[in-house]
């Protein structure tokens, strides 16, 4: 468990075999983001396309996974179908602890299975099962069947894809344990390209404890900080949807394809409304006592006079923004219904919602017609969006297949690029201003979690571009230390550099604890190098016009400042990716 190397399972789906390999670098690459980049260097090829069977699909955990609370995330790395560049997506659920208890620091899946398959791994087994009967099966139904063909209820993680992944959609997610996702940048399509419907990881290993009484004592201290202080209250209480009302008040909530930044009728979809009317219960990732997963419900009358069915749907700020405010929805149950449709297809809800917001405006403007969308798309009308999610997931016609490759790809064909809300990929739910827009457009994952750009916008009224760029570079580095461990980023205020050092020391990673200062920069360099080698050109990033047209609490967006930020951050990224000694 505590070892000076990484223990990695490499699975060859074509051969139907796996092998355990020892990989060096524990004290320098740590794990998670660092390990994934190292493994892609080893097993991937930046010059080959994303769907080349030889390309690896990587899942990596960190040195503290399972040892401390909220060390509960997994990094998934792959060459993305969205832009054919090296990418990461992160998820929790039980995936991280399942890998830990399967005694794996990482799982690398290579090649393509001859038939649609399910990979089952654990501490004492590797098996590849033919599951051709799950072809095109929605995520929820596939989950039920996968539970029956695998063992270890409660102590396993089930990763699966829906029809969108099998169809090769660049918006296909990998569903993790029903309510979590490797959502962005098309990991689901990578599984689909490998003929891999699902991965079941059983955490059936048993390990000795390091550190004796000191370890147990430190665990208790961290646990108390997380559960008895108000540091995690936001996530435990209303959860991330608390942001909906806050951002709306700031005029920083993207609404109706970012035609607006607030909605007078927002009360119907705030975090408070979801909690009052739709919240069934909270759930947690394994190893996390916070329980930030909020599960609501949709209820449908399927037959007169009073025959109903219900389904449980998890919600967060981002899905609510993407399928709520962006689509002009003002009813929480309507939002959950749209999320539910996207979930069944195995679509990333954020990307799909934002794409449909563009399609709605494109339809309004006559850029496309209903012949393309097959259903009427109108802001505020849920029924059309529920159907459109199915069309998008299945890729039923040329329009939806183009849209599934990314909104800007569709706009390049039909027109309407000016109002495509794309910042590297479909935008996240913050219209806070110049720093966030630049941060997402250029950020490694094009995620609001790459850096705290949205927070910087809210805390700084000045337009000091150099200071903002320095912040983005430094903040990414700090977060990379956490995603190497692999901590939930919600715990970033708890896991200070000092505490991480203590945690590593107490379980026996003393050299890594000493190296912590250099870990972030090292991974940052390696990831950006991989990203640029696989085709990313930071200097070529363009921000669609729509982003320059917004007004929020700070006033109209300053397009000049935004462009200067983009240019400055791009220059830094090129510098960070440069070989040692060649940076500017």
């Amino acid at each position, binding site marked *: *468990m505590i070892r000076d190397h990484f223990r990695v399972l490499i699975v060859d789906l074509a051969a139907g075999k796996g092998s355990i390999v020892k990989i060096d670098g524990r004290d320098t690459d740590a794990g998670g983001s660092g390990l994934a980049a190292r493994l892609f260097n080893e097993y991937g090829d930046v010059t080959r396309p994303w769907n080349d069977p030889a390309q690896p699909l990587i899942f990596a955990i960190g040195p503290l996974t*399972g*040892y401390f*609370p909220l060390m509960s995330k997994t990094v998934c790395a792959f060459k993305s179908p969205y832009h054919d560049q090296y990418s990461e997506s992160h998820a929790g659920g039980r995936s991280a*602890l399942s890998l*830990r*208890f399967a005694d794996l620091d990482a799982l690398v899946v290579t090649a393509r299975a001859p038939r649609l398959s399910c990979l089952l791994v654990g501490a*004492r087994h590797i098996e590849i099962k033919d599951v051709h009967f799950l072809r095109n099966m929605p995520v929820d139904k596939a*989950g*039920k069947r996968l*539970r029956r063909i695998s063992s270890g*209820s*409660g*102590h396993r993680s089930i990763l699966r894809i829906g029809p969108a992944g099998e169809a090769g959609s660049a918006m296909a997610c990998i569903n993790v*344990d*029903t*309510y979590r996702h490797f959502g962005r940048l098309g990991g689901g399509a990578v599984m689909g390209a490998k003929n891999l419907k699902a991965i079941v990881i059983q*955490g*059936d*290993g*048993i*390990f*000795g*404890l390091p550190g004796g009484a000191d370890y*147990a004592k430190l*665990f208790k201290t961290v*646990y108390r900080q997380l*559960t008895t202080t108000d540091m995690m209250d936001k996530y435990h209480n209303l959860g991330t949807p608390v942001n909906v009302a806050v951002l709306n008040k700031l005029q920083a909530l993207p609404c109706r394809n970012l035609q607006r930044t607030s909605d007078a009728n927002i009360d119907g979809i705030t975090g408070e409304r979801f909690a009052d009317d739709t919240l069934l*219960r*909270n*759930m*947690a*990732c*394994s*190893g*996390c*006592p*916070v*329980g930030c*997963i909020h*599960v609501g419900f949709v209820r449908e009358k399927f037959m007169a006079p009073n025959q109903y069915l219900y389904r*449980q749907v998890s919600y967060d700020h981002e899905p609510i923004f993407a399928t709520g405010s962006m689509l002009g929805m003002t009813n929480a149950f309507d939002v959950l219904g749209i999320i539910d449709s996207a979930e069944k297809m195995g679509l990333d809800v954020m990307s799909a919602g934002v794409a449909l917001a563009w399609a709605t405006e494109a339809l309004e403007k006559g850029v496309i017609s209903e012949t393309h969308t097959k259903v009427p798309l109108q802001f505020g009308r849920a029924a059309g969006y529920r159907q459109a999610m199915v069309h998008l997931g299945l890729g039923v016609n040329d329009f939806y297949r183009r849209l599934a490759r990314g909104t800007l790809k569709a706009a390049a064909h039909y027109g309407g690029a000016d109002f495509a809300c794309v910042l590297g990929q479909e935008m996240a739910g913050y219209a806070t201003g110049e720093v966030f827009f630049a941060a997402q457009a250029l950020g490694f994952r094009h995620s609001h979690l790459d850096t705290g750009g949205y927070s910087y916008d809210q805390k700084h009224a000045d337009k000091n571009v150099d200071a903002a760029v320095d912040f983005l570079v430094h903040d990414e580095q700090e977060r990379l230390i956490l995603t190497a461990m692999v901590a939930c980023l919600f715990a970033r205020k708890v896991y200070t550099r000092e505490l991480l050092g203590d945690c590593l020391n107490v379980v026996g990673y003393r050299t890594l604890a000493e190296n912590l200062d250099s870990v972030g920069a090292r991974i940052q360099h390696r990831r950006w190098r991989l990203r640029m080698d696989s085709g990313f050109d930071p200097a070529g990033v363009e921000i669609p016009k729509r982003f320059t047209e917004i007004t929020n609490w700070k006033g109209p967006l300053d397009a000049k400042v935004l462009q200067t930020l983009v240019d400055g951050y791009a220059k830094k990224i090129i510098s960070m990716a440069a070989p040692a000694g060649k940076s500017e």
Partner: protein
Amino acid sequence: MKPVKILTTPRMERCIGCHSCSLACARLVHKRLSWDTAGIRIISSGGLSTGFEARSCLACDPAPCATACPTGAFKQRPGGGVRVKKSLCIRCEKCAAACPVDAIYLQPDGEPFVCIHCGQCVAFCPHDCLELAARPLETAPATQTGEAA
């Protein structure tokens, strides 16, 4: 006689599936890192959408596992449950087979793990699902109350 305390799981409908209880038991009682080697184990009851169940000792008296144990490694605990002496265990696995509620986990080498009703897991449950309390009188076994069966 002072009533003994037992671990109960009276509010499992509040469970969020964080496994903090199992991990605490494995860590503090059994000195291991594992989901399995714990006196309380959390499983989903038919997929995550249907909630969670705790697999733990119900403090039987008489305890079928103690009755089945041929060496005295599992002995009846006054008030319910068992006292475990691992040094006497021959890994025959009869205890786990005898348990009617699947509360005993067997390691691959046959070593058994069962709740000893110490209550160390209780403090780690964020939703107060668990309780270490004196067995309520109405469910107290005959040996506790002196009543006939």
